[in-house]
């Protein structure tokens, strides 16, 4: 069965239509990469999938693991296995990173009818994942993202993904802000999580991430539409030629009403 099925999705923010008819199907085990110029709607698509309410869907439908995603609240979507690594992770003062993650994991376990983990059961899991991402133990008790460097925040997002083990993970420009070594470590962490039951949507501007995380499909989003899809080689082509040629092509084929 399809894990994600997006049909003719239109969405607006602050009264402006940003997504203008997206169709996308993702099967378990696949990695899709979404590329496209600034402002084309990549993050908007991610936020809609995560059910942010200020992003209004005006047409279309989305099935997530066979269920109607658009009727879910953000926390329901999350508990159903939807994860988004934020392009700009939020700081929340006074909340310990470990405490927060255990609360999140337990909220999901509860939703799925599993027992909650106490601090003692949680600790080894947390330590193991810290190690996977080569993160210092002091990230356990520091306040959630508060004062984290840009790269540390991104790494912390992937740590959360590793602990929450989603069915679908959307990584929104996780590579931006990472130094060369961090990029490799984070990519290794992501690769370690690839599995036949899990799919990923990787939003990025750069080939360098896709050198590590090799996608099965690459889609190019321009002005709210997927204007071209292909294999991993499409990213290489974009790296070489930029978006101009695709944009020109897209304008020629787009419906006049847009």
């Amino acid at each position, binding site marked *: 069965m399809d894990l994600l099925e997006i049909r003719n999705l239109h969405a607006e923010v602050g009264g402006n239509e940003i997504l203008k008819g997206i169709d996308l199907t993702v099967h378990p085990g696949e990695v899709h990469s979404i590329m496209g110029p600034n402002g084309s709607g990549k993050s908007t698509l991610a936020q809609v999938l995560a059910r942010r309410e200020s992003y209004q869907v005006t047409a279309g439908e989305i099935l997530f693991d066979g269920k109607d995603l658009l009727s879910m609240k953000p926390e329901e979507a999350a508990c159903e296995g939807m994860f988004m690594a*934020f392009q700009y992770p939020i700081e*929340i003062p006074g909340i310990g990173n470990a405490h927060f993650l255990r609360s*999140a994991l337990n909220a999901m376990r509860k939703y799925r009818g599993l027992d909650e983990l106490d601090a003692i059961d949680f600790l080894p899991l947390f330590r193991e994942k810290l190690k996977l991402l080569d993160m210092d133990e002091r990230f356990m008790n520091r306040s959630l993202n508060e004062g984290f460097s840009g790269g540390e925040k991104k790494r912390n997002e992937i740590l959360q993904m590793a602990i929450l083990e989603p069915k679908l993970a959307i990584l929104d420009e996780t590579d931006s802000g990472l130094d060369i070594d961090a990029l490799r470590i984070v990519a290794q962490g992501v690769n370690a999580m690839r599995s036949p039951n899990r799919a990923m949507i990787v939003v990025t501007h750069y080939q360098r991430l896709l050198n590590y995380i090799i996608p099965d499909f690459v889609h190019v989003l321009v002005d709210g539409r997927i204007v071209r899809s292909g294999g991993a080689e499409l990213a290489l082509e974009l790296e070489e030629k930029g978006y101009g040629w695709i944009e020109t092509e897209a304008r020629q084929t787009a419906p006049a009403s847009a």
Partner: protein
Amino acid sequence: MGSSINTIRDLTEQDYKWGFVTAIEDERIPRGLNEEIIRLISAKKREPEFMLEWRLRAYRYWASLEKAQAEPKWANVHYSPIDYQNIIYYSAPKQKPGLKSLDELDPEIRRTYEKLGIPLAEQQRLAGVAVDAVFDSVSVATTFKDKLAELGIIFCSFSEAVEKYPELVKKYLGTVVPHTDNFFAALNAAVFSDGSFAYIPKGVRCPMELSTYFRINAAETGQFERTLIVADEGSYVSYLEGCTAPIRDENQLHAAVVELVALDNAQIKYSTVQNWYPGDKQGRGGIYNFVTKRGKCAGVNSKISWTQVETGSAITWKYPGCILQGDNSVGEFYSVALTNNYQQADTGTKMIHMGKNTRSTIVSKGISAGHGQNSYRGMVKILKGAVGARNYTQCDSLLIGDQCGAHTFPYIEVKNASAHMEHEASTSKIGEDQLFYLQQRGLKLEDAVSMIVNGFCKQVFRELPMEFAVEAQKLLGVSLEGSVG
């Protein structure tokens, strides 16, 4: 903040769960206030002459203020005039005189405290916490008295202290908060009916938390209790205070006074979780919580630390402060004040630096939701002799929704140029982006709000004794439920 906040409003609205009334016969005196009433209260308590004289002096002072302008008008709170002749100043549950053991306590009262989570019976007492239970105007039970007595610690009701330790009472009563301090302090001195008294002897570290649980039960009454804690040289005590009241449409007045005295090298830690009935969602009813709390660091190297979590009451008006008289003495004030619906709080502290190298720390966290109004009012005074005094003040406000208000009124007076003062302030709103982030990780909206608020209060919560901190966090969650809009 759009639709995510509306969902908060839709969440099951949890009522104030401490709002029940205990059906019990009480003994009350006639309504109103005059010298006769004062004499009656004093007689009921079989007080020595010095106490009656003290009360009458306070009453006359209060009556003169009442004529002039009644309550002080500077606080940023609004309410209709209080009719002091329409209040019953003394109400006590009828019980057999001379209880030999706590287990003889009226079962209704015992059940009340059990329901509130404060078991008084020998077998089920809270481990490590001695409780003085005050029910309306009188103290009905004090646990662990004998065990404390072995160490020379006195912990009993104020009435019992007047009877058994009149010298101690005489020596310290009114020395920190004189009856002339303010309108409500005068009223309290005139009519106070009971409260707790603790004395920690020289060099003794009190091995358990001392606590008082105040419960208002009777209607149309006011509660006026008085607490006096004296920590003798080199001693240490941690004291907790909690309170609740039934749900009623009328407002009820609670005007307490707390006096703390710390002698040389002594330490007092005073924690409050204030959860009086806050009124309903439209702002009807609730307690007027007008209290005066002050500690005197009388001795060198002494320390007094106030921690308060104020979630209840229709109106809160209180400024627990420290007089830093002894050289090197330390005063601290950690506060969380939450106002939801139509609650109003005007709270803060007063730090008066007199001795050399005295230090004070103020951390105030105000949370406003609904139509709540929250004011921080703090005074830091460095007197001439306070060479090398230091103060650090941090004052943060968190707004939830856009119909509430946060206000800050700092007063600073420095008469010694060597003083070192630091002041930080911030105001923030819970952002839709923070809530969404937490929801994206699977947390329900109300848990997300609660988590952000708890994070905001962390600096204060970590000052509370462990089991209180957990309570306080839960209370904050409940107080915010169904509220954000």
